[in-house]
């Protein structure tokens, strides 16, 4: 399904497949448009199944001239059946897409894989990004593998785990005194002046965003070429959320699966919920906010794809909900206790929203639900500090018995 052009989502103006992200006529976002697949669903399925155990098995649906000869193996992460979580929530069938299993422990490895491959095809010599944290590590690692210099712009007050892990790959970390939206604005300006730099989520954003579609492709394939009834996914810019639906639509259009797009449920933190607020208000205008939440990886106060995320949730019979910091911590704990998967705050948001939907009775007893757990708890360790007690004892049997003997 070769890529054909970049197309404006607002006014449908088309552009060649270059490094551009904004429609020059109306400033709308550009998206990759493809030719209809020349192969049958059966043929596409065979090609996917014969492909590598990475996201490159979906090359027919990605905007590259060719799949890179070598890259950090990304994708094909486990889809874990979460029966104990389902039981706790009174649900029938819950699956966790465990994105902590990617090379830098978040879904960002997908978008960076595609963006970097396209950036190299377009002749860029340096990679950069505006990051809330996970992207920083992904850009730094994939650039290291490809041997390209990387500049990673982050809010200076980011979690130390995210800054340290990105810096370890040799990227130049730029800590910007301001929130993510300020970092993003700066990067938009820098990308206009540095012509040989590919900012993965600015000037090559249309290609970058395509990487998130592979979350849907894998989910469908791992469910035996079937669709879930409902999806719960976090919303920061709204790119992942909208592209997951796009991925399911691609497979429907190509005849690989049958049915309809799942009900799409978005998850935000109360301290940064412009999309949830727009959804609740019945509008698609996402008024920007100043983020104040422990879910820093979702702290985008001015979400680029916000209006599309609201439309999608509404159109599919889904929702966009927001949860408090305490609910986020409880969500991290709930997921860890019932599935053995330790997620960062964004996954706490997703799990807490899943719990909220279950409590509200929005999920039917027979519904098959997939929740996207996008990042690893080891990157936001501070959020679980103090949520449990460590028994601190002398190395003597009596001390153990005195401390815990009554409960074990």
């Amino acid at each position: 399904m070769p890529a054909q052009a970049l197309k404006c989502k607002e006014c449908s103006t088309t552009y060649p497949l270059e490094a551009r992200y904004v429609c020059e006529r109306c400033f709308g976002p550009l998206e990759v448009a493809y030719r209809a697949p020349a192969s049958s669903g059966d043929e596409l399925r065979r090609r996917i199944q014969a492909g590598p155990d990475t996201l490159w098995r979906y090359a027919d649906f990605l905007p590259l001239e060719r799949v890179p000869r070598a890259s950090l193996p990304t994708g094909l992460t486990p889809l874990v059946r979460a029966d104990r979580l389902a039981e706790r929530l009174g649900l029938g069938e819950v699956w966790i897409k465990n994105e902590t299993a990617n090379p830098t422990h978040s879904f960002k490895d997908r978008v960076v894989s595609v963006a970097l491959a396209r950036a190299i095809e377009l002749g860029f010599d340096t990679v950069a990004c505006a990051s809330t944290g996970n992207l920083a590590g992904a850009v730094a690692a994939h650039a290291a593998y490809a041997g390209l210099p990387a500049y990673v712009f982050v809010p200076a007050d980011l979690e130390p785990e995210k800054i340290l892990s990105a810096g370890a790959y040799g990227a130049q970390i730029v800590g910007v005194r301001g929130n993510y939206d300020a970092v993003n604005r700066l990067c938009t300006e820098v990308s206009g002046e540095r012509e040989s730099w590919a900012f993965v989520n600015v000037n090559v954003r249309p290609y970058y965003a395509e990487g998130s579609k592979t979350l849907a492709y894998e989910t469908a394939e791992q469910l035996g070429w079937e669709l879930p009834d409902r999806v719960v996914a976090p919303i920061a810019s709204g790119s992942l959320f909208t592209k997951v639906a796009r991925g399911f639509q691609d497979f429907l259009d190509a005849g690989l699966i049958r049915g309809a797009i799942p009900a799409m449920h978005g998850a935000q933190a109360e301290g940064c919920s412009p999309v949830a607020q727009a959804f609740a208000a019945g509008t698609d205008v996402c008024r920007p906010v100043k983020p104040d939440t422990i879910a820093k990886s979702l702290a985008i106060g001015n979400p680029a794809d916000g209006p599309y995320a609201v439309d999608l949730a509404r159109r599919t019979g889904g929702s966009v909900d927001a949860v408090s910091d305490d609910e986020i911590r409880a969500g991290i704990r709930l997921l860890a206790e019932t599935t053995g998967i330790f997620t960062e705050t964004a996954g706490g948001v997703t799990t807490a929203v899943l719990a909220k939907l279950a409590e509200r009775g929005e999920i039917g007893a027979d519904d098959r639900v997939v929740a996207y757990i996008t990042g690893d708890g080891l990157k936001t360790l501070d959020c679980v500090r103090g949520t449990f007690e460590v028994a601190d004892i002398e190395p003597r049997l009596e001390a153990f018995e005195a401390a815990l003997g009554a409960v074990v």
Partner: protein
Amino acid sequence: MAVTVKLPTQLREAAGGAAEARADGTTVGEVLEGLYSQHGELRDRIAGDDGELRRFVNVYVKGEDIRFLDGLETPVADGDEVTILPAVAGG
């Protein structure tokens, strides 16, 4: 009041290649009108038919998004910097 308006690369062609322009006005709205009077082609790019900013255009005064201020009514002072940028980035 003379204000500097910084233009993103996507708008420079419509402004004769300039990266910035000078315009007069006491509010952001007036400054933009001043900008359109110099470069007529910019009006359609930046504003919709209702005169409001298109939904993927961000405007900042001294680095602050005008949606946190008074929108197009946001006052500007002599020497202020107004920055126009595409909203479609990040995430």
